[in-house]
């Protein structure tokens, strides 16, 4: 070995920790959420939605106690009576107070919708994200599995689940309902996320990050998920109404929330009968509440989306 270059063992020492992270680029996120909130506050429509959700949420607990009736007591001498000063929303075909039943309906519908949307969001993002980031082979297999799940007759699964769980005892009907509502509905979310991820994976900043040595998890967490949040949030706000709808439609088939409990969907479904005989309030009151909930979540979702997107910062 010739002299000239003096290679000392010290040169091979491990670098200090702080040096290792030197090339990582991280944007401080401390001021991000307050900023989002500030921008959300400026959006009047979104704030209306948020306020509406809060009011509906509170009323779904307060409203059921306001006029002294219960959701199950029947009064056969006051069947199908139109709204008046005693029964503010009228009564149904069994003489039950619709004001109380409607607020119970709001409570159950909100709960079902939010829970189902949460499950969809969780599974959909996880599944779609993994499929999108994992490369062609795994992606392809995962998407085929999603297709299979999406193709299996939904009602068959719902009936099976309800049969299996009816053995497990009563009171599980709400759980069964939420479970069966989110069984297949996470698939579109997964497909959406995967599509976004595929697109973003090829974007310049992901490539840059990759070339700087970031691993897949890091790219997913720091680049792809934040950037897909917009479409995902829109989807989640749509998922809540969609789940409320799906429950209502199951009610139309007869598999909605177990009577005598009421959801907005089962109320509207029972109210259909009142339409041709001049009791349209039985349909329109729950329908209006469904619409209010939709409206609130939709405008809030849109507002959130705009607020979350840093590129729209003005």
């Amino acid at each position, binding site marked *: 070995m010739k002299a000239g270059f003096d290679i000392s063992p010290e040169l091979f020492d491990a670098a200090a920790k702080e040096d290792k992270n030197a090339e990582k680029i991280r944007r401080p996120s401390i001021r991000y959420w307050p900023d989002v909130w500030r921008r959300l506050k400026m959006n009047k429509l979104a704030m209306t939605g948020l306020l509406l959700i809060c009011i509906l949420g509170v009323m779904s607990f307060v409203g059921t106690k306001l006029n002294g009736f219960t959701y199950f007591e029947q009064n056969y001498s006051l069947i199908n009576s139109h709204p008046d000063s005693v029964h503010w929303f009228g009564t149904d075909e*069994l003489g039950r107070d619709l004001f109380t039943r409607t607020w119970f309906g709001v409570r159950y519908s909100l709960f079902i919708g939010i829970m189902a949307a949460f499950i969809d969001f969780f599974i959909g993002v996880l599944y779609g994200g993994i499929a999108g980031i994992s490369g062609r082979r795994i992606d392809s297999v995962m998407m085929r599995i999603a297709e299979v799940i999406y193709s299996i007759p939904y009602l068959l699964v719902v*009936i099976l689940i*309800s*049969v299996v769980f009816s053995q497990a005892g009563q009171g599980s009907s709400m759980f069964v309902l939420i479970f069966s509502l989110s069984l297949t509905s996470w698939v579109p979310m997964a497909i959406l996320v995967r599509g976004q991820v595929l697109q973003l994976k090829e974007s310049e900043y992901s490539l840059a990050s990759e070339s700087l040595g970031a691993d897949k998890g890091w790219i997913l967490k720091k680049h792809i998920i934040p950037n897909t949040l917009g479409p995902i949030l829109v989807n989640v706000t749509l998922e809540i109404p969609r789940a409320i709808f799906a429950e209502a439609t199951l009610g139309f088939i*007869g598999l909605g929330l*177990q009577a005598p409990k009421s959801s907005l969907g089962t109320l509207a*479904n029972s109210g259909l009968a009142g*339409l*041709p*005989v001049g009791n349209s309030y039985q349909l329109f009151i729950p329908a209006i509440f469904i619409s209010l909930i939709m409206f609130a979540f939709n405008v809030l979702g849109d507002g959130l989306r705009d607020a979350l997107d840093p590129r729209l910062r003005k």
Partner: protein
Amino acid sequence: MKKYLVLVLAMLMVLSFALSACVPKAPGETPGEATPALGAEPKILRTNNAFEPGSLDPALAQGTHDSWVLDHTFEGLTKKDVDGKIVMGMAKEYKLADDDVTYTFILRDDIKWSNGDPVTAYDFEFAWKRALDKDLASDYAYQLYYLKGGEAYNTGTGSVDDVGVKAIDEKTLEVVLESPTAYFLELTSFYTYYPVNKKVVEANPDWAKNADTHVSNGPFKMTGWEHNATITLAKNDNYYNSSAVKLDGIEFTILNDENTAWQKYLGGEYDFLTPLPQAVVAQLKNEGNPELVIGGELSVYYYNLYNKMEPFNNAKIRKALALTLDRQTICDKIAQGGQLPAEGVVPFGMLDENGKEYRDGVGKLVEYNVEEGKRLFAEGLAETGFKVEDFSKFSILYNTLEAHKIIAQAAQEMWRTNLGIELQLENVDFQVKLDREKAGDYQISRAGWIGDYIDPMTFIDLWVSDGPFNDAKFNNPEYDRLVKEAKATTDQKVRMENMRKAEKILMEAMPVVPVYFYTQPYAQKPYVTGVFKPLNRYPYFIYADMNK
């Protein structure tokens, strides 16, 4: 930009391909097919049949949606007249031998199939034996088990030659029954006993699947069948009594949403409609609308109690449940279709040995009586050791349908207020309910029974210990004996007396809680006349007329 173009083109191709493959059929040209009287506007009665028939072959038909069409296109040896009485149809006379089981029917001379062939005794023999063929696997084959050797042949243990039906010649049909059957002439008006054209059926097994190959012997013939959309019938000029048939045709649409059908009726697209939405019946009834007719029905709505399970094995508990259900309120305020509170299990409308209403002979066997119910319930609880709270483990099982849901909620609430028990409700799909009833996996379940024929026996024999529909698992040797005895004789006095006794035993033990006797409300426009409704059939348009 090129890729854009490719994409747009591809999308367009897919769309246009799909569209061209699926241009729907041209607007229903079918109504015109019925042959109108010259110069006059054809009288086509338009109505709705809620479901597509599973078959329009009498041997394979299995429900009212099939039989409503069949009852207009076929005719049996006997038929029902306007008063609901049994009169001669394809047969002009019959003789019953002294053995009480051998009938000899003589057919009319002027009877022809819609294709012009004569209707013969051979057609009847062929039709009945065919329905009993186990390879045909007819759902209703057991309606022919009254024939000697019928069950054996259908089971595969007997020969077709031993079945008790034989054409002596073209016009003479000899029928031998397994045992005396008081209501056999009633049965021969039922659709499983309708004849089929032997020549046509042998030549083409698919004859009943299309209007062009469908051949029948009744007042109307089928001229069009667009699956799941419309069935059109035209007057059959070969029918022996065609001069009494005023309509030129009948058009059934197939649409199963009651509300939509009602809107169509209101909009003038139907002349006649049944069933009607429950709320609509109530409204029409309250305003005394003359278009509403509440037709009689031979059917009972009840709740099964699972008699093998504690505490429902206790008669006092069962009776308490029956006594505290307010049937009058359910009929008047909730069901609102003119239903009658079930005071037993046998509905109104059937006659006893003296030609009087059967129900008058038995009287009210169950009435609303909260005090008595509470007393029995307390005793029952003491005997079984159950507590009121224990009942919240039990549920009322019903199959998914809005009407059942309302009744179940009312029953739940009545039992809660009267007995203090908080039963659960559980709705499941129909097949699951049947499965759980068969398996005994229920406590209280909704059920209904429509009489197959007009005789109290069709209800009474439901609860013999080995009855196939005895899901309550009622078991009473005395009851079984009474039924068996009644079935072995044609002596009306013995039969009726036995059935009355049996019904009293049943309502003493209360294995089931009767709720109400059904009705069949229907609406007809003011210009429609001559529609009549036999008790256990859908309304008949055979003698209907329209004077617009």
